[in-house]
């Protein structure tokens, strides 16, 4: 790949679940500081691809590079330390831990000073006041939307260089979606690269510079977000 600015590059990746082939020969790349979105129907293989990038799934023959380093030689838990962090689909908060414990775990990979962590915590709680109200409640008892906020907040606590967001707006009230996308935009503005998987394609395409469309396990379209928004097929399928 060309040059300096490519942060994440995925080339020819396959994901299999036993017999089922969920992703076939997918390639994509994200440049330093870029916001990219990946859209596609249910079951297209978006989450599978994201999980392959994060080393939660074996990825066949292709290669995955982050800052030029081959991720295939690393374990999933080594990635956050490199600055690659995923906010997984379906929230997956630690149900028995409290809200604060969840957030602190988000910063597990950082070797930051205590007060630095405290300021970051305060920033997240500021973003989601609801979480501040629930700080000592077990995360499992939060409402769905509150859990989603927590998952995103937890991802932010890692101060990543690149954030993979898998359906961040799922289950959120319209107003909160605005808040979250506002926050995501703010993060992007700070130079964090983003790869967003989104069903709400409007939102994603609005924020992203480039987009990839996935269908039945392969990436079928890619290009600047603006041009995709105008693509007839995309409009029909994903913008409704």
């Amino acid at each position: 790949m060309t040059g300096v600015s490519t942060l994440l590059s995925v080339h020819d990746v396959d994901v299999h679940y036993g017999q089922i082939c969920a992703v076939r020969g997918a390639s994509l790349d994200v440049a330093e500081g870029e916001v990219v979105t990946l859209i596609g129907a249910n079951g297209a293989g978006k989450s599978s691809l994201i999980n392959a990038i994060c080393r939660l799934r074996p990825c066949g023959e292709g290669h995955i590079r982050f800052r030029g380093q081959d991720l295939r030689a690393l374990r999933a838990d080594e990635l956050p330390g490199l600055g690659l962090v995923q906010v997984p689909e379906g929230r997956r908060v630690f149900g028995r831990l409290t809200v604060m414990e969840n957030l602190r775990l988000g910063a597990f990979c950082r070797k930051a000073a205590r007060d630095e962590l405290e300021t970051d915590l305060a920033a997240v709680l500021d973003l989601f006041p609801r979480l501040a109200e629930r700080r000592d409640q077990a995360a499992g008892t939060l409402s769905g939307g509150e859990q989603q906020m927590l998952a995103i907040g937890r991802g932010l606590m890692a101060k990543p260089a690149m954030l993979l967001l898998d359906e961040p707006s799922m289950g959120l009230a319209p107003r909160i979606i605005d808040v979250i996308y506002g926050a995501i935009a703010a993060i992007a503005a700070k130079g964090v690269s983003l790869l967003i998987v989104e069903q709400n394609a409007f939102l994603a395409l609005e924020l992203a510079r480039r987009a990839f469309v996935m269908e039945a396990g392969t990436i079928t379209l890619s290009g600047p977000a603006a041009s995709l928004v105008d693509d007839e097929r995309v409009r029909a399928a994903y913008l409704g």
Partner: protein
Amino acid sequence: MDVGKAAALHIALADWRRRSTWVDMVMLALRVSLLVLVSAGLLLSLAHNEYSAADWLSFAVFGLTLGSIYALISLGYTMVYGVLRMINFAHGDVFMAGAFGALIVADPLIATGSLFAVLALIAVGAATSAAIAALIERVAYRPFRHRGTLAPLICAIGVSFVLQYTVRGFFGTGSRAYHDIPVLDGVVILGPLQVPLVQLFVILAALLAMGALHLLVQHTRLGASMRAVAEDRETAALMGINADRVVTFTFLIGGVMAGTAGVLYALVFKQIHAFMGFAIGIKGFAAAVLGGIGNIPGAMVGGFVLGLAESFGPAALLSGFGIPAPYQLKDAIAYGLLVIILIFRPQGIFGERLAVKRM
């Protein structure tokens, strides 16, 4: 006024009847009859009053001695269960192996006659158990991380057999004896009570070990990462937590505690054999459940409760009913306590109610 109350009561009762199924009623009946039975036993035993105050006190001391050994063992169960949701059936044998590991150096160490030697003995036992625990985690459990709970359970049973029969092969079929340790011989006079020094030593040592563990878990990120791994290994990895390392560490600590318990056990009972681990191990797990599994202070309390129940139970509950040879049933009391706790308070004495999964 009275009529109003009666009516209100009537309505409440009717409402309760509407809400409850027959199972609820059975459970209520069970609860009531247990309560009646236990209080009757207590009252009758007290009415007989065969025991002096000193007797009761010495029951308490035995109970605590045994309880601190249970407590130390239960920590290993609690932590491993907390992280892997797996009953490590071999943990009792890890405890046993600790006692045997220390046996190898026991004679020369004891011969030096210093308290320091006893501490060294404990260190050897703890190191043996920790090494064995970590080894079996690596060889026998790690491959099962994603394989449900049954395969690792069976594997644990296999490991338990291997440890028992290995020790048996190494050290012979009979019991092996620990020699009397002069520094710990003798009694401490506490009021009307003569407490053997060993027992005091064991209680103290156990408390110290557990306190240290509590601090370790409280004041490092270990506690939180253990719980995170327990809940969702993949997501924990996404946070940068190395599950393998956390698990190994858990086993190591559990092993240290079990090995300590093994040596303390040997100091008190002076006889060890290859099969002693299993039954005591089950008690240790029971203690963990009593206290609320996954809860470290709970495990300690659970151990003490179990030890006390065993030493008091037969005298305080059964002898009142005139049951012959009540001490034959002390384990039945211990298990009975366990079952009752599980039925009526599944989260244990201290455990928080397991957060109900959201719908």
